[in-house]
């Protein structure tokens, strides 16, 4: 399941693409000179840093990834409106809770992505991962029902992530 360097001379292809795009973003340009320079850097930097990375599960569904990202973005906006209301509203109506989310997803990167998503979206902050990687401890700003919260997260975020990483 773990991605092995598929090409010796291009150890991290996704990274390289990301870096290439980033370079163009940084320079606000698609001028030929920067295309060349960006390509060079996108190739060279992974060459240098590949030694310093843990092997991670590969992305299998790029399209799904994009869709997931957009969904999260939407959730962030709505989550924030909710949080704003909660923060500015009466505080005694908040019912914070600490919850242990059982994990089905495996692998460092997927778990990290899930944790990050959880932190960015409705009223929850991921606080700790158990050593066995089976539980994600979550703090909720306000929670009505624990089971519902867990189910939502698993349904809305964990499942697509598992699909993306095919695990």
């Amino acid at each position, binding site marked *: 399941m773990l991605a092995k360097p598929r090409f010796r001379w291009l150890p991290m292809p996704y990274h390289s693409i990301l870096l290439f795009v980033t370079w163009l973003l940084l320079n606000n340009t698609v*001028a030929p000179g920067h295309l060349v320079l960006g390509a060079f*850097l996108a190739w060279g930097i992974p060459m240098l840093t590949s030694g310093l990375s843990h092997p991670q599960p590969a992305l299998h569904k790029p399209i799904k990834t994009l869709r997931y990202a957009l969904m999260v973005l939407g959730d962030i906006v709505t989550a924030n409106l909710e949080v704003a209301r909660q923060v500015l509203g009466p505080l005694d109506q908040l019912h914070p809770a600490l919850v242990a989310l059982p994990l089905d997803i495996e692998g460092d990167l997927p778990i990290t992505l899930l944790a990050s998503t959880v932190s960015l979206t409705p009223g929850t902050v991921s606080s700790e991962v158990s050593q066995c990687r089976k539980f994600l401890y979550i703090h909720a700003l306000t929670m009505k029902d624990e089971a519902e919260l867990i189910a939502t997260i698993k349904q809305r975020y964990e499942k697509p992530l598992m699909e993306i990483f095919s695990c």
Partner: protein
Amino acid sequence: MSLFWIPLLPALGVLAPIFSDRFGRTSCAFATAAAPALALLMLLFKAPAVFRGETLIASVEWVPALGMQLSFRLDGLAFLFALLILGIGLLIILYARYYLSSKDSMGKFYAYLMLFMTAMLGIVLSNNLIQLWMFWEMTSISSFLLISFWHNKTEGRKGARMALTVTGAGGLALLAGLILIGKIVGSYDLEVVLQNGDLIRNSSLYPVALGLVLLGAFTKSAQFPFHFWLPHAMAAPTPVSAYLHSATMVKAGIFLMARFYPALAGTELWVIVVTLTGLATLLLGAYTALFKHDLKGLLAYSTISHLGLITLLLGMGTELAAIAGIFHIINHATFKASLFMAAGIIDHETGTRDMRRLNGLWKFMPHTATLAMVAAASMAGVPLLNGFLSKEMFFAETLLQHTLGSLSWMIPVLATLAAIFSVAYSLRFIHDVFFNGEPIDLPKTPHEPPRYMKVPIEILVGLCLLVGIFPAFIVGGLLHSASYAVLGGEVPYYSLSIWHGFNLALVMSIVAMFLGVVIYHNRRKLFKFQSQFPETDAKLVFERLIQCMVRGSVRIQQFFENGSLQRYLFLLFMMVAVFSAKPMLQLINTAGDRPELPLNGIAITLAVILIFSAVATVIWHRQRYISLLTLSVVGLVVSVAFAYFSAPDLALTQLSVEVVTVILLMLALFFLPQQTPKESSPSRVARDLGIAALIGGVFATLNYAIMTRSGISISDFFIDNSKPGGGGTNAVNVILVDFRGFDTFGEILVLGIAALGIFKLINRMKVSMPSGDIKGRNWTKDSHPMILRTVSQSLLPLALLVSAYIFLRGHNMPGGGFIAGLITAVAIILQYIAHGVDWIKPRLKINYQWAIAIGVLISAVTGVGSWLFDRPFLTSWFDYFHLPWIGEFELASAIAFDLGVYITVVAATLLILANLGKLTTTHRPTVEEKR
């Protein structure tokens, strides 16, 4: 030019004993004597010319800046002294051959002696004041070595140190005096000085100059009150005493007075000071000598007394008195040298110098006794001996002078008194040692010394007799030429005959003889009388004085230097405050004429945040973690301020440095206590706040004053030339890599050295680590949180890309090698934080030490590269190129320079932080076990 050889030969002779020591004692003595003998011969060849009244001068340039030539001058006075130095010196060499025991290092002794002889000759032959002083001080040093020759004896060490201190102090005064004379006259040339006596005497600085010169002379010649060192110099081997205290060292002071007689003498001040000093010394020496039980002690005080006599004569200011003084110099040298040598023989043969034990030696060593008795008689002033003649002249002069006005009669009376004691102690020397019953348990059974040990005494005693009987024939010429030199012109008539008729001087002599015998006869009563006074040992007093000084110094030092950095810093800040506040008090306009920027609420709020955070840092400084957080806020606001005031480069740099610094401080905090105890008293806090506020206020005022003043600046040059001259549009960066690239080069060097130094510090560091945090909670076991690990990993390539971006655009836009380097370093540090040293180590195999060297070298080589084009170091080059499709781009040597900066920054930062991290990795398990 042959004049040079006279001092030079003994100087070279220093080496002779060192190399000939191994060939036996006699060979060593002969080898040593060769140089002075030759010098003496050369001196004698000059005698006719000198006696004709000529002054021989030989000089070469040496230190023009000091007005110092190497210049020697031989006139009558110099001739007389050189003769004594060389002549008696040769006798001493012979004498010492037998005196020194086989345990003593003869080579060393002779070498010191030659050094001393050179110095003495240098003094008497100098024609330049500074040169004279040079040799003068050399006598102090070499006599120190000679006096302390038996340095395993406390006596020798302390005596030598005392002599050195006193004569050294006098020497320093003399130097000041001589320079003063030189300033008055405008030259250090003795010839010129002696010709300008009136100029000197009329100068307003004359009293000071005279005082300083006399201080030198009096200390050297053991004049009251500086006489105390001389008796303790008797710890030296007797040949040394015989040499130093008869003809040389102590006579140097006398010589000085005689030498400067034409320039300094003749004023009322001179007469009073010199006369009174001489008189006091004469009396004190003569009186004290009688009570000394040590044979050499008696001779020492007698020497002091005779030196006083000569000083008195030179002080009286009449020409004939001066002549008498010079005559007595000769006579004293001869009889005192022989007496010392005799005393040395007695000491050598009996093992003691205590006159209470030494009795009746006549039976054991009649030959030596005879010689000693003749010399002692001369010392007492017995007719037909040379001592009598000069003493007669002395008496005659005391009767003629009017030095003390209506009290002038006291001088002949006191002189007679001194002569009485002089007769008494001479008598004691003869009677108490050679007669007066049987010796009392001597360590050795005395007998005559080796034959040749007596030869020097025989020669000198012979001279005493010859001069005493045929004065004019033997020393007439010598005395005349010396007097000619001292008086600096015509010599008045004087008679060198044994019989001057029955006059008052003769009466004084007879009275002295008679009363001297009477006093000696009744000595026991006198001894008893004297014993009721506590004897003050000058050495003890001196030592106590020195101890007192040392203890005082220690106390002063401990008072000021209490080892407290806070005090040192306080003084530093005080100085800053005083220096900067004083001119500010005089400043009329605080604000200048430059219009100020308008204020706005956002800036005010940011300033408030800055001020509050800074103050909070101070208030919470005992809780170190919090102060670190507030400090970060200060840094953040400063960065924003830089951005606000049009300095994006500075903002970037400040930000990145800030983060690295905070990481560093946190690393340190782990090994340091996490809290600061309360130690300062409220008054201390108030004091510190006061000085801090003062400095802060002054700096703020200065800052305001400068900012509001319009001024001139060279900065337009950089704006104008940044693009055409440096090839970049970011003027700040062009200054850094081009206009002032040298500064930047130095800066990365500093960074590199700091990293090396820190590595050095870390290398042997012993650290203690807390097993829990500030509230005693244990640390978590999760050393590398998974999520942090995962994300940091992905951030690394991104950060590297950003740093490449910052690096490449630096020349034209905010950025550059330094910032890029810090970004890279921070990104890698993040990896260290997230993954730990053990994980990174095998994956990142960079030798940071090499990388630092290579980084700096890249910059340096880029700079040196311009030499190929015959341009100075760090001259930059750039050009624009065109490639199809890609378009125009620029290549500049500054990029290579900046690359060096980048590499150095990365390597230095990582060398510091990564190694600091490593420090604990190996120890960590033990800490965990402890829980």
